[in-house]
């Protein structure tokens, strides 16, 4: 209503039909707030945004924000999002989910969406645990971490999402921390503006099931790349080096960005005439006649 009257996007316009049912203190609240702030600052009308998720605590996200939303299958959000973007590339596509959804069951789509450079922002609320299934080891759980599924400690090395994204060809790679609101909002804005696949891994602590990687654990360790005058986001090798830092110093911020790679929709001439969602369903008669002539 405010939207219709003033044509301005306000925070109230972006409030979902229901309030989040995340546990009090969950890191995902901070991500939701930052996304809403970014959309207000960028003034993108909510009907031009599609928020797409898989399954998990963080994947309940689309229900808590007033945009077009799709709450799909576990691990499949990126595949669905690619279809949405290719059918209507005028839409701003946000994909939201967790580390299990994205790096575990959805790992295949994660890698391939990045090499395709699909133009969307993928935000992973990375809490290094399976929350909705009440606390099992995730692909980013640290070695030795004790969970219900690995009660004697995790013996499998975690995936490094930042290195993986860099290797797979993501053209924008960043990491945020849910407790660093301003910094996170800025990264989300940059990720939306970036033309191509933007990957944003966000430390979003699980206050119920992960007692290893808490706000207290992260706070002294995270260091903003933006504060490092020597950091050049155009330098892929340097970004890869930074991605390997862990434990005492964990970089957050924009690791890498390149703008010289065509997006998937930009590389396909079929879309030159505009989004397919608005295209005429009929093919011109001279074209279809030629299709049949080929067979005669």
């Amino acid at each position, binding site marked *: 209503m405010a939207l219709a009257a003033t044509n301005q996007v306000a925070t109230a316009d972006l409030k979902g039909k229901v309030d989040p049912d995340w546990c009090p203190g969950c890191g995902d609240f901070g991500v939701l707030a930052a996304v809403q702030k970014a959309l207000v600052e960028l003034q993108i009308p909510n009907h031009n945004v599609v928020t797409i998720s898989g399954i998990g605590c963080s994947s309940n996200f689309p229900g808590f924000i007033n945009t077009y939303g799709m709450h799909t299958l576990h691990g499949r959000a990126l595949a669905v999002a*690619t279809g949405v973007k290719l059918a209507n590339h005028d839409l701003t596509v946000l994909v939201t989910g967790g580390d299990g959804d994205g790096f575990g069951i959805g790992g295949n789509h994660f890698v391939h969406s990045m090499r395709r450079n699909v133009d969307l922002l993928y935000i992973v609320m990375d809490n290094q645990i399976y929350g909705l299934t009440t606390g099992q080891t995730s692909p980013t759980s640290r070695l030795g971490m004790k969970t219900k599924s690995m009660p004697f400690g995790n013996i499998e090395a975690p995936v490094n999402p930042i290195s993986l994204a860099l290797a797979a060809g993501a053209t924008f790679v960043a990491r945020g921390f849910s407790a660093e609101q301003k910094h996170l909002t800025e990264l989300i804005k940059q990720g939306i503006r970036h033309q191509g696949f933007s990957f944003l891994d966000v430390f979003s602590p699980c206050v119920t099931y992960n007692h290893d990687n808490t706000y207290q654990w992260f706070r002294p360790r995270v260091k903003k790349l933006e504060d490092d005058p020597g950091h050049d986001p155009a330098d892929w090798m340097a970004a890869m080096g930074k991605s390997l830092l862990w434990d005492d110093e964990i970089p957050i911020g924009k690791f890498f960005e390149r703008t010289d790679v065509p997006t998937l929709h930009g590389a396909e001439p079929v879309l030159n005439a505009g989004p397919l969602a608005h295209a005429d369903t009929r093919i011109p008669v001279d074209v*279809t006649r030629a299709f049949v002539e080929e067979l005669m």
Partner: protein
Amino acid sequence: MKQTFAIGIGGAAGQGVATPGDIFAKIFSRRGLHLNAYNAYQSIIRGGHTFLTIRTGPERVTNMGDRLDLLIPLNQDAMDRHLRLLASGAACIYNSETIKPGAAAEGAELCALPVSKLADITRNKVAQNTLAVGAGLSMMGIGFQALEEVLTEQFKKKGDTVVSENIGIARAGYDYATANFRPFHWPLPMTGNRYAVLSGNIAMAMGGAAAGVKFYCAYPMSPSTGVLHWMAAHARKAGIMVRQVEDEIGVVNMAIGAAHAGVRSMCATSGGGFALMSEGLGLSAMMETPIVVIDCQRAGPSTGVPTKTEQGDLWQMLGAAFGDYPRAIAAPLDIGDCFKIIPEIFNIADRFQCPGIVLCDLLLSEGRLSVDPKDLDFAPVVDRGELITTAYSGPNGDGVYKRYKITESGISPRAIPGVAGYTHTAASDEHDEDGVLISDEFTNPTKRRAMMEKRMRKVAGITAAVPPPVLWGPRDADVTLIGWGSTKGVIEEACEILSEQGISANQLQIRWLVPLHGDAILDILKDARHTTIVENNYSGQFARYLRSETSFVPDGYIRKYDGEPFMPHHIVEAVKEQLSGKSTLSVPAHEILV
């Protein structure tokens, strides 16, 4: 009995079986003759044994038939396997320098071509094939001009020298046959008709284009890959976004994403790929996002026999994805129907916002048929259903729209992303009318029941929108043959042969599997004297389905699960065996060793 003429060309993969087949097919269709082609092959790029059957005639030819008139073996193996199939009046053209003939049946002619004397085989490795095509056409009484035209088209990209060299070789074979071999006693006629020759895969791809498909994606899987190939080659002219995806899970979800954003979206696979898609099918049903999935059945289970045909996926389609939801399943009856069925099922999927499944098989997908170009209608009825594509202009604004509004028909108007005033979330979790999840803290058995009933009410609408099957042939027949999908043509011919032999037969061929119209089927079958269900699988999947839906039990069954399609005589002989009371289950043996 109608006049037909069948050619079998056999050889190893890589020996060039396809090219002579294409040349014959073009010449026949341009003479106004119908044709049906079926290639028996294996999952191998070089070697093995490939056997292409092309059957032609002035009337409709619906299957590979029972008889070979001309055999062209390209190697010894093909000669050894197939010479025994020839009866009196048939001929075998072969390279007498590399292939030893076996003992032919009386009246079957062995036509030896002295290949190196007729062509320079050091320059042209496939000279024997071209010579054989020339010789065969001479014996069929077809003027050389037709062959010259097709060879010119075939080789024009390679330059004039190659064209004239091939025409020269073909001419040598043609003239040698005129001088030395006995012509076939029935020369191939000519009609004023012109036909397009296409595979079921091309037909389904073009049917998609005609239906207004704007998004097609797939993972390569035999025998469905031909759909992807046509789509990819014609995408830019047709304005279709075509993607090859990392796996079939990605395929179905990407297709759903595109459909959700407002375009008609389609994908094709075979049984294994479909198994990966089944969770996605449930997503389509739950979010009420229409998609069309084509399953080109091959012999299973598991990797099975990738290059062989079967009707073995019916129960997978019936049970795909957990939970109850409305779906439509249609099985095309022939290659022309592969085209027509796509716009039809899209209209059902769009109107009722549910998944549509096309249950095709290798026989149609990779077989080829002559189709009247008039039957390839690129302007079919397109009904997108209740779709909201313009901004809300009512008094209230955002928040009023209920994506899953409870209605009598079960259909809720569907807004697509980008349209102002209709933001909502579509969810795979159970949800309320406004899209809000009821699966978590708000679960409510009354609401869950209401949403289940809303979705399932669409079943009645789908049933009303799909016509019931009809009986073909005399009502008061000695035997009623019941089949589904691709067996239409071969059962039809078996009925004709039975009638000629004094056993009147009629046919009930099922095209829509879901909805089935069980009452209409029972009404048709209640007067039948002897009923037999014919299907290309081991367990009688359709027979079991029909029984589960209607309690109907037929008098007998004819089944085949050796990877090859039925030939008419398989059905004719089985019917006679069953009418004499010798058996109620017949499993015909395939005589062609491929």
